[in-house]
């Protein structure tokens, strides 16, 4: 398998799923309590979403730059 351009969709969903798993694990071992979830879950989403937006914008910029050739 060769390295290809960052696939933002895969990356964002992958991170969201890993984040949910991580939150579950933290709750399970008792580091997080359910009452903290309303803070942690949106925070995970905001971080992952921001990464995705940044990656998408960067790619959009690069594509636009290529089109001007």
């Amino acid at each position, binding site marked *: *398998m*060769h*390295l*290809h*351009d*960052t*696939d*933002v*969709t*895969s*990356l964002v*969903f*992958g*991170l*969201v*799923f*890993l*984040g*949910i*798993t991580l939150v*579950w*694990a933290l*709750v*399970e071992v008792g580091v997080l309590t*359910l009452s903290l*979830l*309303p803070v942690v*879950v*949106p925070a995970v*989403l*905001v971080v992952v*979403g921001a990464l995705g*937006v940044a990656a*998408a*914008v960067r*790619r*959009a*910029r690069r*594509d*636009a730059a*290529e*089109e001007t050739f």
Partner: protein
Amino acid sequence: MVAGVCSGVASRLGVDPTLVRVVVVALSFLGGAGILLYALGWLLLPEDTTGRSLADRALRGDGTNPQTVLLALGLGLVVVLITFGVLRETWFGLTLLAILLVGGAVLLTRRGAGPPAAPAAPPPPGWQPTPSAATAGSYQPPAGPPPASYGAASTGTYPTGASYGDYVAGYPYGPEPTMAPPPEPAQPRSYLGALTFFAALLAVGVLGLVDTLGASVPLSAYLATALGVTGLGLVVGAWFGRSRGLVALGVGLALVLIPVATLERADIGGLGDAFVEDTVEPTSARAIDGRTFEHGVGDITYDLSGIDFTDRSTELTIQMGSGNLQVTVPDEVAVELDAQVGMGQVDAFGSASSGVGVSRTQDYPGEADGGTLRLDIEMGFGNVEVDRASA
């Protein structure tokens, strides 16, 4: 009018735009749902002039002007903030969010199969159909019978010395007129999706064996393990191979994992427990002060009417997944109520409100020296009723 979303929706539905506007304005007073819908509509509905949505243009970046991207980012921020607000209220928000994620995934995958391929490489400058006439010369098919030197085995009329390509190119009717530019190289088949899927199965199987061997593995552990492996596969697929198909698998797993894990934590002994009908009748304020009671599904009554709250401040928290919760308090106690219902109804001291994300924070005064009861109630899906003993 801001972006004409209402009139666009109205013309699509064939109704009066005023009606749509009234509904949206009404919704925007109800926890920002209208604003959320308007922002989503602005982002995702195609425009009349271009036939494409704002998000589409911002993401694909053609004709990119910075304003499009900024506007899309701003609207996206509005959506995130409002969603945050909904999430903060209830776990029900998580379900809404998951539905949004599925919608986003569908939109993204429908746009084009597979990861966006690099734009087809333009032909190198000066590229044109091979002028092979220069190399092969203008071959003229011999008109007469083949010369004897072609050999007895050769039944064709063409010289065996010329390659097929030369022959085609040099054919007097000219080279094939539709010489297409070289096709994009076919993407190599990716095994990442299958690999991840079977790795997830393997991990779940191992967990099952551990479970059988004696360790107690909750249902959510199976789901979380499968979800984690799926997430890993997707992250790898961001740079190697392709694994977008795993998005659907992950969304499904997350949709099951979240409620299962929540119910497990609510300590109701698993999903198998049936509807519980119970009346809780504490004997003293001391017995309940500062405590949190958790219930799964059922019909629960708290009868606090016999408790003496005089001259003290008592705090009680009740959390319930689904069902009916009735709390009866003595006539003289002041109640500081904070009730949150994901979906359902709050009926406190004769005043009822219902819907999605119902929240009631209010103080109900009692008699002098009657004491104070701070009552925290969280209900996922159901009805909460708080009333005085005499009512």
